[in-house]
């Protein structure tokens, strides 16, 4: 029974044990792995949710999280924990590699009428999949000969909503050439930019947890996966699992592109390394 006038003290510390339990829970659900180095960040986010859910203690919040069958609290806390940093034309040399080397190799093996399927996983607020779309339209001479599907997924439902919205600030678009900005974006007040509706409408955004094998099983016959700057937040075991899941999502001969500080060589031997003019990428073998 709530008593008016008296407010329960809001918990302000997370014990070592609570920290461990919480990290372990998040790790098992998402693959994201945090050490003591991230303690301050985690404690802060955790206490914020404890206060917002009006839990009487960290313990009781953890219980709420564990027994919430709707999954809504998990979603909220995961949204709070993810690092969503991204921008247009990030590591554009990989997009150059896509149009100059990867796609020509892929379509050589395709019949007319078959689709080219590219998956941005994780897509965060959409800069990556929209960059891919714009890059293809700008730089792939064959673009009109093929039907191209661009899929985009992330675990964080907040960033997916933002991605569907497609509105970006100046920082996010600063690497885009002026003409490209003019051609594919509509200028909004306060130096913000909205991606054109035709592009917005052509990309399918879905919530996917890479660490969930069942959710990943819904994606098959992909030609190229961009998996950039996510595995750095995982530990060894979940990186291996993610690599294995992606392998199963790809067509034989399909490619994975990782972020610049990431390498498959310490994760998995499933893929062949390929050196192209613009980038090092990983290919699912044919047999």
């Amino acid at each position, binding site marked *: 029974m709530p008593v008016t006038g008296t407010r329960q003290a809001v918990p302000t510390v997370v014990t070592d044990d609570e920290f461990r339990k919480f990290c372990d829970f998040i790790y098992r659900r998402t693959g994201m792995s945090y050490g003591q180095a991230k303690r301050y960040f985690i404690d802060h986010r955790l206490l914020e949710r404890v206060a917002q859910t009006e839990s009487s203690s960290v313990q009781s919040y953890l219980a709420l999280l564990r027994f919430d069958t709707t999954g809504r609290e998990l979603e909220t806390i995961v949204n709070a924990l993810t690092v969503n940093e991204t921008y247009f034309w990030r590591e554009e040399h990989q997009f150059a590699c896509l149009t100059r080397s990867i796609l020509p190799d892929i379509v050589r093996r395709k019949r007319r009428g078959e689709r080219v399927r590219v998956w941005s996983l994780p897509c965060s607020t959409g800069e990556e999949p929209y960059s891919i779309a714009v890059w293809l339209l700008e730089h792939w001479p064959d673009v009109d000969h093929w039907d191209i599907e661009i899929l985009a997924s992330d675990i964080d439902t907040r960033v997916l909503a933002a991605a569907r919205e497609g509105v970006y600030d100046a920082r996010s678009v600063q690497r885009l050439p002026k003409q490209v900005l003019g051609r594919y974006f509509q200028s909004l007040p306060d130096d913000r930019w909205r991606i054109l509706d035709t592009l917005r409408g052509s990309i399918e955004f879905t919530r996917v947890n890479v660490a969930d094998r069942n959710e990943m099983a819904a994606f098959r016959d992909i030609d190229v996966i961009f998996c950039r700057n996510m595995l750095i937040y995982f530990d060894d075991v979940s990186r291996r699992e993610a690599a294995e899941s992606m392998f199963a999502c790809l067509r034989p001969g399909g490619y994975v592109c990782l972020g610049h500080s990431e390498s498959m*060589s310490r994760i998995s031997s499933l893929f062949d390394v390929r*050196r192209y003019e613009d980038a090092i990428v990983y290919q699912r073998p044919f047999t």
Partner: protein
Amino acid sequence: MTEDNVTPLRPGPAKRLLVIDDAALIRAYYRQTLEPMGFVVEEAFNGLEALEKALMAPFDLAIVDVNMPKMDGLSFVRKLRTTEEIACLPVLMTSTRDRDSDIAAARAAGVNLYLVKPVGEDDLRLFTSIMTGAEIP
């Protein structure tokens, strides 16, 4: 470690070595032994990482362990020999295994020289110099 008796290489562009071993201490041993002679040493943790590095920049010699995770030394050499851009890279293999059959398997894979671990400093310097065409200390 005394370094005064180390003969520097003859002048010219520094020879580049790719040292491939999963044990950090062994990579450090190679580095410490060979860097004072003027070699440039890059490290890789297993065969896959080595392939990546070899594809990104040219090397004069790979010094490869056999027993490594994800891609072992023999698989690395086989892959190397069938990868066009890097097929000619000379390989010195080091191994804890000393049976004739191990050595034959290494030769068949395309290894140029096989040494049984532990490789002493003098041998390491000598064979690295010979295989890179550097002046022999």
